[in-house]
């Protein structure tokens, strides 16, 4: 994946370059808004990591110019301003995701992966399949092999999100945001409890486990 990073803080930029390169991505960088915009217009990239506060043109302005020139590549906005209002402003100006500093590299990678996947595979399919797990998005039904699995709506939403991101790590925060529509941490182990119940339904009694816990970062659903 080609990632364009626009970040003015050199240490943060190095951290991003190092982390994302190690994760196997190709990275190009800019240190201010104007050169970031310039690079975005000249070079091709898959996703963009855009800092909100930049010298010269700020992140929102860069984003607005990009969208005005009809460049629709996914943009993840980074900011030290983590509050809901700022996130809403960012999303309103065309950002596809918003991540508050400080964040973990795993979180960033997982989100960039999800953005890229959404960009290249639009949600047009009506069925999804990973190994012997099949989801019918119209009937809201799931089956594993020949066995039909009874799921309640919330469990189905959770499973659908995992399947759509099959093979990639999804973090606790991503689940909270996308499945529960929560933008704060409810402290209590809400995600863990729901995951363990879902697991009981999907993996219990089957030889190959599909849902795996990634310690300290989240979950991944992948074919054995």
């Amino acid at each position, binding site marked *: 994946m080609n990632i364009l990073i626009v970040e003015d803080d050199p240490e943060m930029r190095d951290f991003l370059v190092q982390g994302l390169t190690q994760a196997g991505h190709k990275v190009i960088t800019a240190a201010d808004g104007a050169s970031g915009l310039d690079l975005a217009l000249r070079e091709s990239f898959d996703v963009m990591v855009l800092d909100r506060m930049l010298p010269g043109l700020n992140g929102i302005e860069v984003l607005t110019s990009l969208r005005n020139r009809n460049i629709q590549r996914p943009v993840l906005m980074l900011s030290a301003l983590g509050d809901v209002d700022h996130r809403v402003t960012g999303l309103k100006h065309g950002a596809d995701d918003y991540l508050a500093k400080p964040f973990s590299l795993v979180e960033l990678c997982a989100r960039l992966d999800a953005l890229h996947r959404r960009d290249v595979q639009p949600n047009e399919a009506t069925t999804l399949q990973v190994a012997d797990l099949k989801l019918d998005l119209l009937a809201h039904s799931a089956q594993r092999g020949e066995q039909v699995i009874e799921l309640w*709506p919330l469990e189905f939403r959770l499973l659908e999100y995992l399947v759509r991101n099959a093979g990639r790590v999804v973090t606790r925060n991503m689940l909270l945001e996308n499945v529960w529509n929560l933008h704060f941490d409810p402290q209590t182990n809400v995600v863990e409890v729901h995951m363990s*119940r879902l697991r009981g339904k999907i993996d219990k009694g089957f030889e190959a486990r599909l849902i795996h816990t990634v310690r300290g970062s989240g979950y991944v659903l992948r074919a054995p």
Partner: protein
Amino acid sequence: MSSGRPDRSRNTPLLSSRFWHSSTVRMTVVSWLLLWLLNTAVVLVLYNFTLNTLVKDLTGTIQQRIEKRLSTWPKQLPQHAGVTQWLYRQFAVEIADMQDCVALVDREGELQLSNIDIAKRAEFSFRDFRTATYTGHRWRAENEGDTVTCLVTDHPLTDGGHLFFGVPFDGYLATIRRLNDLRFWGLLATGTFSLLAAAFISGRALRGMRMLSHLCDRVAAGDLKQRMQIHGRDDDFDHVAAAINHMLDQIEQLMEGVREVSDAIAHDLKTPLARLRGQLELLLNIPERSDEAIESVIAESDQVLSAFNALLRIAQLEQGTRRQAFVHFDFRAVTDHARDMFEIVFAEKNIQFSIRADDDSYPVYGDRELWLQALSNLLDNAYKYTPEGGYIGIRLERGENVIVIEVRDSGPGIPIGERKNVFKRFYRLDKHRGTKGTGLGLSLVAAVCKVHRATIALDHGHGLVVRITMPLDMNADDVNDIDADNGTGDTGKIGYVQAAINEVR
């Protein structure tokens, strides 16, 4: 800090230039001048009125005397030439015994006959009247040499001469002199009095101002214990002093709060940071990398971050900038969302969970996500302190103009003495210091309530009862529509959760 400006706390001489720059003094001087002018005007009007009445009275007397005298004369005075001559003859006979003042002047201005000295004008003149003085008084021998003042009027005669006729005026003149004196002393007295009063009032105001500025200096220098003196006179000075004292109380309380928070930061944020540092140091000494150790370091730093985020969020809420996200909605949307998250979690711990909402709708105006977070915090608290097999319940009630939200649990509750404190930032009951948490949960709930003008109270039932009372949304026409949109989804979720509960049992 004080080096760059004059030290205001020193006593200032009353007549220094700053005295005149004081707005209080300027105002007092102006009002004094106005007062004095008004006094003067009143005195002068009274004076003129009295004098006018007096003189009118007197001229009436003179007129009567003349008429009486004229009536003893022939009806037909010679019309043209010779009036003066004729009068001369009339007066020449009796002038020696006359009590009235008379002077007859012919056409050429020659004094023909007189018992007064009209050339020597007395000090008093008023409008058309003038006074003249007797000299060589002939009709009362014992007063020879004395002077008596008359008030005379001038009657022009048809042949060009003048008859000056009048009455003795001494008695009246004394009265007028007294009046004049009265006018002078009156003006002086009111002037002096109002000047003294002005000086007294502005002196008090100045003293008040000086005390205030002195107090401000002391407070600015960090002495928050200083207060304005209240004299108990219930005047505006006392009111200002009371207002300032109230403000200082508030500031002191805020400062106290800041101090508590910084103490708490020292304890609750420094402790995990210190642990973090210790763990990192340990990591340095471990020969091979340990994922577990690194993960625990990351978890520790996340704990610090989440405390910071909560603090920032509370601070932002307290600034009241979040009202832009306010919408009209039914509070059940929040409780249903919370049920989605927590019901299964509670079931894992065998905690019985129920939501009671008997009314048709609970329209409120506010930020849905903030309420969800507040309710999550309350449920999270309840979950932490409710023992296995316990009970947690939410009850919605619609009052006259309010909506009451109650969260009850069967935990140990909070002792009455501690109830006020739990809303303070970082405050944690001592026995719970070991439990995971930032100590900011209830502070955030309190801040959310404040933004929504809701009140929060703690009570004791079987465990803790948290009762939030928030205003009912009066413009709630469209709430039911919104509700209808979400309706199907919500019922679905409730059904799902209910089924899940049954499954667990």
